[in-house]
C-alpha cells in the first residue's frame, strides 16, 4: 500500500510539477503569471478536443488508431492552446504594460471558463448520459509505460509505471534548472527578472526574454493539464475536475524557492499530501479536509522560515510583478 501511495503521489505531483516549472521559468523573467491555473485548464481541454476529434473519427474500429498520431495530435493542440494563453499574457503585460496581477487573474477566470465551455460542448456532442467525455483509447497510448515495470516489484511500480509525460515533466524541470544556473541564457533571464534596467543597459533584449520565458512557461504548465486528463484521469474529462491544482502549483514555486530541482520533490510531497487522507484508515470527512490543507500550511511555514533566514538568494526575483519601460522617468 505504501508503494501505491508513492505511485499515486507522483501521479498527483506531475501536473503540479509542470505548473510549477512553467511558473518558475515565467517568474524568473519578472512576470508573475497568475494565469497558470487557467492555462493548465486550456492545455487540458485543448488536448481533449484534439484527442476527441481523432478518436471519434475511428468510431467503431478504434483498434485501427495510430498510436503516434493519437499522442501527437492532443500534444500539438495542448501546446498551441497554452502557447496562445502565454502570448496573450506576454502581449498584455510586456507590450501593453497592463497590470500583471489583473491580467493573470483574468486569464485564470477565462481559462477555467474556456475549459468548462468546450468540455460541456463536447459532452453534449457525444450525447452521453454521463457529465464527462471518455477518451479511453487515446489515454491508453498516453499511459503506456515500460513493459519491464511490472517485473520489478515496488521499484517498478513507483518509478517505472508512468506514462511518458511524467518523465518529460521531470526532464523539463531538471533542464530548466540547468538552464537557469549554468547557461548564458539562464544568466540573462535571471538578470531580466532581477533588474530589467541592468539587463537592458547590458544590451539584453528584455522584451524578448519576457515573451520567450512566459510563452515557454505556459506551454510547460499546459502539459500539466494534458497529463492530468490523459494519464492521471485515464482520458476522462469532466468539468472542474482539475480543481485548484493550478494554485497549488504556484504555492510550490514559493515552497521550492524558485528552484525547479527543488520543485520535483516538493510536487511529489504536495501530491502525496493531497491524497494521503485516502490512505489513512478510519478518519472522518472533516479530518480529510483538514489534511488537504497541509500543502498550503507548509507553504506559509516556508514563507515564514525564509523571511527569518533572510538570504537574498531565496527571495523572489526582485522585479517580479513589475513591468519594464525604458524611458520611464
Amino acid at each position, binding site marked *: 500500500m505504501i508503494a501505491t501511495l508513492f505511485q499515486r503521489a507522483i501521479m498527483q505531483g506531475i501536473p503540479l510539477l509542470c505548473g510549477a516549472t512553467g511558473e518558475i521559468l515565467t517568474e524568473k523573467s519578472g512576470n508573475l503569471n497568475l494565469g497558470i491555473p487557467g492555462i493548465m485548464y486550456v492545455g487540458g481541454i485543448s488536448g481533449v478536443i484534439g484527442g476527441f476529434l481523432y478518436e471519434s473519427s475511428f468510431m467503431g474500429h478504434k483498434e485501427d488508431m495510430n498510436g503516434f498520431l493519437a499522442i501527437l495530435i492532443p500534444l500539438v493542440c495542448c501546446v498551441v492552446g497554452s502557447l496562445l494563453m502565454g502570448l496573450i499574457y506576454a502581449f498584455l503585460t510586456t507590450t501593453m504594460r497592463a497590470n500583471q496581477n489583473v491580467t493573470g487573474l483574468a486569464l485564470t477566470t477565462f481559462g477555467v471558463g474556456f475549459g468548462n465551455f468546450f468540455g460541456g460542448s463536447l459532452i453534449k456532442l457525444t450525447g452521453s448520459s454521463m457529465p464527462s467525455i471518455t477518451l479511453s483509447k487515446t489515454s491508453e497510448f498516453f499511459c503506456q509505460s515500460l513493459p519491464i515495470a511490472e517485473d520489478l516489484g515496488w521499484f517498478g511500480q513507483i518509478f517505472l509505471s508512468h506514462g511518458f509525460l511524467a518523465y518529460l515533466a521531470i526532464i523539463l524541470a531538471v533542464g530548466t534548472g540547468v538552464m537557469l544556473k549554468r547557461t548564458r541564457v539562464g544568466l540573462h533571464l535571471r538578470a531580466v527578472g*532581477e533588474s530589467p534596467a541592468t539587463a537592458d543597459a547590458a544590451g539584453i533584449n528584455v522584451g524578448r526574454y519576457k515573451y520567450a520565458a512566459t510563452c515557454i512557461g505556459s506551454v510547460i504548465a499546459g502539459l500539466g493539464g494534458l497529463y492530468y486528463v490523459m494519464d492521471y484521469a485515464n482520458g476522462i474529462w469532466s468539468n472542474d475536475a482539475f480543481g485548484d491544482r493550478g494554485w497549488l502549483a504556484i504555492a510550490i514555486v514559493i515552497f521550492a524557492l524558485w528552484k525547479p530541482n527543488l520543485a520535483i520533490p516538493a510536487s511529489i510531497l504536495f501530491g502525496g499530501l493531497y491524497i494521503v487522507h485516502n490512505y489513512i484508515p478510519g478518519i472522518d470527512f472533516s479530518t480529510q479536509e483538514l489534511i488537504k490543507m497541509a500543502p498550503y500550511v507548509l507553504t506559509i511555514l516556508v514563507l515564514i522560515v525564509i523571511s527569518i533566514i533572510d538570504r537574498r538568494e531565496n527571495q523572489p526575483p526582485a522585479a517580479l510583478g513589475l513591468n519594464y519601460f525604458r524611458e520611464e522617468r
Partner: protein
Amino acid sequence: MNTVPAIELKNITKVFGSIVANKNVCLTANRGEILSILGENGSGKTTLMNMISGIYYPDEGHIFIDGKETVIRSPKDAFEHKIGMIHQHFKLVDVFSAAENIVLGLKDETFNMAAAVKRVREISSRYGFEINPNKKVYEMSVSEKQTVEIIKVLYRGADILILDEPTAVLTPQETEKLFAVLLRMKADGKSIIIITHKLHEVLSVSDRVSVLRKGEYIGTVQTAETSEAELTEMMVGRKVDLNIERSEPKNPVDRLAVSHISCIDREGTKLLDDISFTARSGEILGIAGIAGSGQRELLEAIAGLQHLSEGEILYFDPATGKTENLRDKTPLQIRDLGVRLSFVPEDRLGMGLVGNMDIIDNMMLRSYREGRSAFLRRSEPKTLAEDIINQLEVVTPSASTPVRRLSGGNVQKVLVGREIAASPTVLMAAYPVRGLDINSSYMIYNLLNKQKENGVAVIFVGEDLDVLVELCDRILVIGSGRITGVVDGRDTTKEEIGLLMTKSRYDN
C-alpha cells in the same frame, strides 16, 4: 599632448515633453585625456551622457566617433563603439557575483565562468583594482560596486569611459584610489569623461573642463589655465534679476532650534552630520545645496519622519510659550504643533498627495481626524478646496477632478495651499517651484512671502540660486550632509553660494 578626438558631439538637442534637457551641445573628448563635464543639478549632464551610451536617442544633432558619424540607438550600439558608461546609480544585479555581472549581456565567446573570473583578475591587476570576482554584489560596499561597474566596461574593451558623479558616494580615500586608477587608464590611451559638480576634483584630475548650464553648452577650458572662480562663474552664470519682493523681517524670534543633529542610513553612511541652525519667525530661511546633500533628510528629521542618531530639535511654541523637543514626538504631534512640511519630491505626487483622489479628498488627508461621526463630512474640505482653487488660480475642471490629471504647477499649488491653509507656525517647502512656469513660480514666492509677513518661520529648499538669493533672508548651504556656510541673502552672491555648495566642510 595627444589631441586625437575620440568622440565629438555636434549640436545635440534632447527634449522631454516641454522641458529642454539639452540644447545645441557641442563637445569633444580626445584619446588619452580626462575630460570633466561640470554643471549644476538639472544642467543636463547626465542626459547628455545617456545619449552617448544609448539610453536616450537625441532629437537633433550628430555624434562622431573617431571622425566618423555614428548613430547610437541602444546600449548595445554603444558597446560596439567601445563606449562604456558607469552610471551614478549602479546597474548591477544584487544576487549575482561580480563576475556574473561583468559578463552579463556578452554573446561572442563560449559561456565559461572560470575563464571570466580569470580575465577579471587580469584586468584588476593591470589597473590596480581590488576585487573578489566571486563576491555577491549585495555583500559589497559602494566603492566595490563601482569597481565592478568599471571593470564591466573595461572587460568589454571600452576605449571611452563615462563616469557619472563617480565620487559622490566615495570616501576621500576611495576617491584617491579611483583617481589613481583613472590616471592609469588615461596612460593606457583611454578617453575618460567625468560628470561632476565638485570643483576641486575637476581641478585635480582632469585635463580639460566642459561646462553646461541649464541644458546649454557654455564652453571648454584647459584645466591648467583656469581657476575655481572662473569655473564657478561659468557654472552658475551671471546674476539674473528676478524682482522678487523681499520685505524686512518683522520682530523675528527664534521658532525652531536645530542643534547638532546627525542621522545615518542603513549602510552606515552619514546622511546628516552635526547640523545646527535656527529658524526665526517672519523670516525665510533658504537651504541651498547639490541635490542629495541631505536636504530631504533634514526636513524629514524636523517633521519627525527621519530617525536621528544624535542631536535635538527644539521648538518654541508661540501659543503656550513652552519649549518642546521634537525629537520625542510623532509626526502627528509635530504637525499638531503647527510645523508643516510641504515636500515636493522628484515625482510631485509622491509624498503629499494621492493622484487618483480628487482635490477635496486630498484636503481630507489632513483633516480626516476631525469630527466624531463615523461618516466623513465633505462640506468643509470642499469649501477649502474651492478657496484654494479660487485664490491660487488652480486650473481644474472642478474640485472633484483627480489630482493626477492636473498639470504639475497646479498640483503644487494644491499641495502648498493645503499646508498653508492649516495656518502653520513653521512651513517647510522643498523644491516648490520645480518644473513650474514663471507665473506659477511667482505665485508660490508670493505665498511664501505672505506667510513670512504673517510671522511664520519659512524654510525654503531651492535649487535655483537666483531665486534663493532674492527670496531668502538667510541662506544655509549644505554639502554632503554638513553645513558648509550660512550667508545673508541681502549681501551674498551666487558665486559665493556656488563655491560653498561644492565644498564638503565648513571652514570659517
